[in-house]
């Protein structure tokens, strides 16, 4: 259970959706404005790390299980690579979006593909940042148990 006060817990509960919404905004608008998959993924991961700090590591582990994180960590680079290989399959070079045969203008196709890649990067970076923090915090919890 959490050691922090009810004010911190309530504020966190209200803050986390807005953090995640801002992270998603940064990811989705990555192709047109500052930001992108990496920055947005880090912002979404920060909300989950805040949850882990306030509500404890075991509660956070139930929200983002290791299996889910493994799948997301693998899915991000996989989607990126598949989109890249798609350019080769239709006769271009790696990550050449323009010539992918979608029923749109070439620059619209390019923007759609860049958006998909940004989402993939966001998923991967988010899971990786959460895993990094969990690994550090888990060793700390382990050390605290040894002291007991």
């Amino acid at each position, binding site marked *: 259970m959490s050691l922090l006060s009810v004010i911190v817990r309530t504020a966190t509960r209200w803050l986390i959706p807005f953090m995640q919404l801002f992270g998603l905004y940064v990811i989705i608008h990555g192709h047109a404005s*500052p930001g992108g998959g990496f*920055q947005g993924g*880090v912002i979404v*991961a*920060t909300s989950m*790390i805040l949850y882990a700090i306030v509500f404890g590591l075991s509660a956070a582990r139930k929200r983002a299980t290791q299996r889910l994180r493994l799948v997301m960590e693998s899915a991000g680079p996989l989607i990126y690579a598949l989109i890249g290989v798609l350019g080769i399959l239709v006769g271009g070079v790696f990550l050449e979006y323009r010539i992918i045969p979608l029923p749109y203008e070439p620059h619209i196709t390019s923007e759609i593909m860049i958006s998909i890649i940004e989402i993939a990067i966001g998923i991967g970076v988010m899971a990786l940042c959460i895993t990094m*923090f969990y690994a*550090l915090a888990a060793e700390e919890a382990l050390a605290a148990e040894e002291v007991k």
Partner: protein
Amino acid sequence: MIWTLDVALLLFLVVLAIGVVISKNLLAAAIIFSAYSLLMSIVWTQMNAPDVALTEAAVGAGVMTLLFVAAATRTRMVEEE
């Protein structure tokens, strides 16, 4: 008048960097480094690099500070003389 803001930001950056180096308390050093990253992101914005500024604010001030604090709690916080 914007150059005065730039000069003030850069001077304060130098002060914060020296503060990180000479700080004996690891937690204080991590927090000062977070402030350094926040100011650095403003400087990046002044240099017309909003993408880098967003990265600096998200990674430097957010996740790096958390990871530094998580790592520092596993050591003795204060360096002995």
